[in-house]
């Protein structure tokens, strides 16, 4: 069961919601509906599932409905139609009391503008969620103090929010959300108000925290770089619709449409694209002992290649063989290609990024073999051409 399942979530602002739902079913566009009824479709039939422990990023520009969608998840905004299942329980049908309990225990939220109470100290702010639950002062102070250390606020406990920098204030916001011990964290452009440097630092710290805590995080951003840095998966929204969901790599390598491509172009791909998405998974190989010099040459002729990877019968990668040397071996009458396999060559693993493969371009003129780190089996081959185009191609195209 997914941690959070969103089914056909629709949010309409305006009076004639039922008419709008009907129009949506008829397939009318957002603009037509606005003209006809004066109602805005903020979120349109959003459906996706988020697994426990997943870092899910929703990315979109302002007005794309991403923040409204997030607010539907804890019903700060009431969704017009659709279901939200948290651990299988439908959030949309909870009564006031049950909803309060869910907000207190299961889902916490971090806000772009922090939303801290200016008249309370850092510690009191962090303990605020616990206070709302009715926890006693000593107990909630103790719990808040634990979280203080976690987010790096030690020594700031007695200060007021106004005495802190933006980054520190958002740590308070995060600590307040964590103090309740929720399983789901909603983060609404949590780092967008921060300076770029602080922002990167906070992203790193959040990733470190997530490694320890394994919360289910839904993070909203308008910045694709941030989405890619943080997200296990990314949903891209436009005009209230989710137009693509996938891992950062899937989004970058296979953008669903022009809109997504236009974003993707600006991203530094080198750190995201990995060997697995670039490699040719069915390269022609010289199988050691099965293919002698004769067999290898035949394969080279058939493919027009002058370099072949050599593998064992069970696909263990051995190295590369060159056309000229294989010819010489044949001339000398040796039965196998063993003597001419170049074994000392760089290899990549499936999750090796383009950036990490950059040195290979300088070191070798051979293709890069992608092998399984455990079994050393050959998984695929990346030609020099595609490696060079991937590292420079963005500027050229």
């Amino acid at each position, binding site marked *: 069961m997914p941690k959070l399942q969103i089914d056909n979530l629709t949010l309409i602002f305006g009076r004639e919601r039922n008419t709008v739902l009907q129009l949506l079913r008829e397939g009318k566009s957002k603009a037509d509906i606005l003209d006809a009824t004066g109602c805005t479709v903020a979120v349109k039939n959003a459906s996706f599932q988020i697994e426990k422990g997943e870092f899910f990023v929703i990315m979109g520009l302002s007005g794309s409905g991403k923040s409204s969608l997030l607010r539907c998840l804890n019903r*700060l905004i009431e969704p017009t139609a659709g279901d939200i299942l948290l651990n299988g329980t439908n959030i949309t049908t909870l009564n006031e009391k049950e909803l309060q*309990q869910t907000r207190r*225990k299961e889902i916490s939220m971090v806000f772009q503008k922090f939303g801290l109470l200016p*008249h309370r100290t850092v510690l009191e702010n962090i303990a605020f969620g616990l206070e709302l639950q009715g926890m006693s002062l000593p107990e909630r102070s103790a719990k808040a103090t634990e979280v203080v250390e976690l987010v790096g606020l030690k020594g700031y406990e007695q200060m007021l929010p106004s005495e802190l920098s933006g980054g520190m204030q958002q740590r308070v916001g995060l600590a*307040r959300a964590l103090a309740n011990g929720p399983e789901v964290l909603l983060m609404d452009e949590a780092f967008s108000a921060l300076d770029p440097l602080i922002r990167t630092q906070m992203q790193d710290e959040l990733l470190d925290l997530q490694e320890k805590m394994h919360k289910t995080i839904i993070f909203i951003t308008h910045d694709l770089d941030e989405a890619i840095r943080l997200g296990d998966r990314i949903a891209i929204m436009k005009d209230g619709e989710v137009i693509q969901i996938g891992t950062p790599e899937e989004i970058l390598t296979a953008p669903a449409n022009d809109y997504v491509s236009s974003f993707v172009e600006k991203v530094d791909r080198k750190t995201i694209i990995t060997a697995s998405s670039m490699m040719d998974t069915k390269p022609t190989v010289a199988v050691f002992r099965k293919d002698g010099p004769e067999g290898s040459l035949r394969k080279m002729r058939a493919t027009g290649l002058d370099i072949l990877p050599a593998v064992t019968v069970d696909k263990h990668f051995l190295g590369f063989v060159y056309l000229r040397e294989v010819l010489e071996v044949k001339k000398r009458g040796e039965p196998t290609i063993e003597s001419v396999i170049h074994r000392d060559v760089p290899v990549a693993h499936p999750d090796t990024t383009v950036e990490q493969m950059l040195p290979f371009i300088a070191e070798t003129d051979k293709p890069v073999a992608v092998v399984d780190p455990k079994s050393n089996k050959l998984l695929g081959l990346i030609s020099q051409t595609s490696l060079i185009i991937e590292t420079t191609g963005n500027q050229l195209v």
Partner: protein
Amino acid sequence: MIKIGKYIEQFINWLTHNFGPFFKTVKVGVEAMVNSVQWLLTFTPFYVVIALLAVLAWRRAGWGVGVMTLLGLGLIYGMGYWGQTMETLALILVSAVIALLIGIPLGIWAAKNSTAGKIMRPLMDFMQTMPAFVYLIPAVLFFGLGKVPGVFATIIFAMPPAVRLTTLGIKQVPEDIVEATRSFGATSRQLLFKVELPLAMPTLLAGVNQTIMMALSMVVISAMIAAGGLGEVVLKGITQLKIGLGFEGGIAVVILAIILDRITQSFGKKKQRAKH
């Protein structure tokens, strides 16, 4: 001719006829309140009252205001208007407290409920701009002459700022803070008492200050229906053309006004927190 006056007259008569016992009960209650506050203020020796007020002014608003309170109240006592001043103070306190007890909840309601807000706005405009003397007439019809109609008219006249500034204060609470509070599972009561009222407090206290100042101005006017106090001194000055008497009463009112204003204003200012 449209005879609105006649209809209002009929309505007031209808009220007095049908709610006589109610008004009588209110009258007894309010009278008891005013009398006990007044008794407390006059039974306590004047120097104790002066000392307490001066210390309060000093602690809240600085030594300057403290000294001024001491000298001002001393002057009032010296001029021989101590009794009337305490009578006026008692009327102000009771009227203001009742006006706040009604006005602040109404202000909260108007902030929370847009329909209530829309109805209350013109009502408050009406209450505030209607010449204050006009309230004296129904007040007398309901409660007869004396302190109670004075308190009644004062409450109506002094309540609008409390309502308005409470509404304003609550509406000024930043949306992101309200949203954050709700997102952590706050009930509406928790939202109000833990977040909205504390954050609205400076504005709300400005409303309290305004209500008290308006109560003071009305209490003087209500001397016309025998509410007593400093207003009576001023009124006597006017009716008997005794310039000196009029000014003496007037000066006492001004002194009382400044002291009340400075002390109540000090509560609205943000408390300075020691930096760490």
